[in-house]
C-alpha cells in the first residue's frame, strides 16, 4: 500500500485558468468518446485481428466451397454473390457485439462519469456508433479484399461503389442503433447475448444472403421485403455485382433500376434515421431517473 504523505493544504493550481463553463466543443467531446471506445474495444492487436477471422473464413473457405456445390445461376458468380451476402452477417454481428460494451459501461464501467460530464449525452451514443461503424467497415474491407484475392469479380464502377458504400454505412447505423437500444433496455448481458442469434443471424437467412428472396415461399418473401437487411443486400449487390439489379427487382418489381435503388436506399435511410434517433432518446431516458 502506498503511503500518502504529501501535503494538501495549498491548492497547487489555484491561479490557473478556470474550466470553461460549458465544457469542451461538441467535436472535441465526440472525438474523445471515439478514442475512449476504441481504447476499450480495440486496444490490443488480438482485439483487432480476431474479428477479421470471420470475413477471411467466409471469403477464403465457405464462399468458394458453396460455389462448388451450387452452380451459378445466369451470369452471376455465386461465390461473389455469397461474399457480398456475408456483409449482411458481419455488420449485424459486429454491431451486436459492440452493444455488449454499452452494458459493461452501465454495469461496471464509467457510464455515470460520462453522464456527469458537461457534454450532450447523445454524443456517447454517437461515439460508440463511430467505432462500431469503423470496425464494421474494416471487416467488410477485409472480406472484399480476401474475396478478390480468391478470384471473385466485382464491378467497381464509380456509382456502384457509391451505392455499396452508402448501403454499408446506412445499414451499420441502423444495426448499431438497434444494438444500442437493446443494450439500454435489456437488464443483463446474458439476456442480451441470448438475443444475438435472433437479431443478427436469423434475418440473414431470410434477406437474400445465400439465395434470392424470390425463391422464398410467398409469405416469407413478403416479410423479407420489409427487412432493412434485404434492401441493404440488394443495394450492395447492385453496387458491386449485379448491375441488372435482380435483388432490387425482387423487392420492387419495377423496370428502372436507379429508381429501385433509390427507393431501397430511402427505406434503409428511414430505418437508420428512426432507430438512431430512438437510440439517443432511449439512452437519454435511461440516464435520467
Amino acid at each position, binding site marked *: *500500500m*502506498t*503511503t*500518502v*504523505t*504529501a*501535503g*494538501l*493544504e*495549498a*491548492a*497547487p*493550481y*489555484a491561479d*490557473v*485558468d*478556470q*474550466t*470553461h*463553463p*460549458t*465544457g*469542451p*466543443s461538441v467535436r*472535441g*467531446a465526440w472525438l*474523445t468518446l471515439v478514442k*475512449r471506445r476504441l*481504447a*476499450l474495444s480495440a*486496444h490490443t492487436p488480438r482485439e483487432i485481428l480476431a474479428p477479421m477471422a470471420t470475413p477471411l473464413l467466409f471469403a477464403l473457405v465457405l464462399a468458394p466451397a458453396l460455389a462448388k456445390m451450387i452452380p451459378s445461376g445466369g451470369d452471376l458468380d455465386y461465390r461473389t454473390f455469397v461474399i457480398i451476402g456475408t456483409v449482411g452477417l458481419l455488420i449485424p454481428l459486429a454491431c451486436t457485439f459492440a452493444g455488449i460494451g454499452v452494458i459493461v459501461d452501465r454495469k*461496471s*464501467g*464509467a*457510464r*455515470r*462519469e*460520462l*453522464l*456527469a*460530464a*458537461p*457534454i*450532450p449525452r447523445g454524443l456517447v451514443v454517437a461515439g460508440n456508433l463511430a467505432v462500431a461503424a469503423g470496425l464494421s467497415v474494416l471487416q467488410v474491407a477485409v472480406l472484399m479484399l480476401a474475396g478478390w484475392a480468391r478470384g471473385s469479380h466485382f464491378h467497381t464502377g464509380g456509382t456502384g461503389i457509391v451505392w455499396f458504400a452508402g448501403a454499408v454505412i446506412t445499414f451499420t447505423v441502423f444495426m448499431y442503433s438497434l444494438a444500442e437500444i437493446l443494450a439500454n433496455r435489456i437488464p443483463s448481458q446474458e439476456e442480451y447475448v441470448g438475443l444475438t442469434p435472433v437479431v443478427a443471424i436469423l434475418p440473414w437467412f431470410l434477406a437474400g444472403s445465400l439465395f434470392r428472396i424470390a425463391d422464398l415461399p410467398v409469405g416469407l418473401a413478403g416479410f423479407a421485403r420489409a427487412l432493412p437487411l434485404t434492401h441493404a443486400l440488394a443495394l450492395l449487390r447492385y453496387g458491386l455485382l449485379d448491375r441488372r439489379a435482380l435483388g432490387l427487382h425482387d423487392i420492387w418489381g419495377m423496370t428502372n433500376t436507379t429508381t429501385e435503388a433509390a427507393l431501397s436506399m430511402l427505406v434503409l435511410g428511414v430505418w437508420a434515421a428512426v432507430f438512431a434517433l430512438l437510440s439517443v432518446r432511449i439512452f437519454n431516458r435511461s*440516464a*435520467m*431517473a
Partner: protein
Amino acid sequence: MGHTGDWTVEVEELSKTYPGGVEAVRQVSFCVAPGEVFGLLGPNGAGKSTTIGMLTTTIRPTAGSARLAGFDVARNPRQARAVSSVVFQDAVVDRALTGRQNLQLHARLWGVGSETAERRIGELAEIFGLGSLLRREVEHYSGGERRRLEIARALISDPKVLFLDEPTVGLDTRIRYELLDLIAGIRSRSGMATVLTTHYLDEAERLCDRIAILHQGRVVALDPPKKLLHELGHELVELRVAGDPGEALTKLRHAGIAVDGAFSVGSTLTVPMDRSAADALETIRNLGIDTESLTTRRPTLDDVYLQLTGSRLAA
C-alpha cells in the same frame, strides 16, 4: 447565468417523487459556501443519493430548484456539470484503461487543455500517491487505490463543487482513515465547495463544517457538528431500565436530572448531563429506578439522530 451570490451550492425546496408515489426527497433546502465541506448524513433510504442525483443532473427534480455556482441544474445542466465533479459510491471507472487514461478522459470531457491536464495529473498523482500506479490498468488496482484515483480524477477539472457520495463505503478501516485524511486535505482547495454524503458518523464529524441530517427525505437538523452535539451537553447518561421507561423518565425530570434533551427509545433512556456525571449517577441510584445498566459517555451524532428521529443511524 454565472455565480450570483455568496453560496456555491444553493438548494431550495428540492423534492423528488418517484413514479408510484415514493417521496424520496421532500422540500430539502441548504446552501454550501466556497471552501465549505457540507455533509448529508442519514441512513440508507434517507434521500442522500437522490439529492446528489438531482444536483448532478441524473435525477429530474419534481419540485424546487438547485444551482451550482449560479447555474440551475434543471435549466443549465451542462453548465452545472461543467463546474462540478462527482466521486460515486460504487466504482465508476473504465477498468480496461490505465489510471492515466481515466484521468485524461475526465480532463478532455471537462474541457481542460492537454498541457494543463498533464500538469494537474502530475500534481495530483503525487498528492494521492498514484505515481507508480498510473501506467497500470485500473482492473489491477485495490479498492483503496481505485478510490484515490477517482478522487484525483474528480479534481482534474478544478471543480467549484465536488460531490463525494459515500466515498469510503466498502473500504477497510486503515484505507478509510487514509482517505479521510486526503479528503480533509482537499477542503481548502481553490475555494471548492464539497458536498459529502455519508452514514458514517465519525466521517461526518471529522470532515464536515456543517451537517444536514436527513430522515425520510427531509432535513431534520442542519448545523455544525459541534453545535448539534452541544445541544446534548458534554456528557450523556444512558440507562437501561427494567420497568416502565416513561415512569423512570418522569422521575428523572422531577429530580431535575433529565432536561428537555432527554429521550427514551425502548427500554433505554438517554439523558444529557448539565451537571457533574458523578453527582447525577448518585442521584439516579437514590431515586430507586430499577436499572439493568447505567453508563456515561460523550454524545455522538448518533444520539442527535436518535433524539431527532427515534431511530439509530449507525448499524
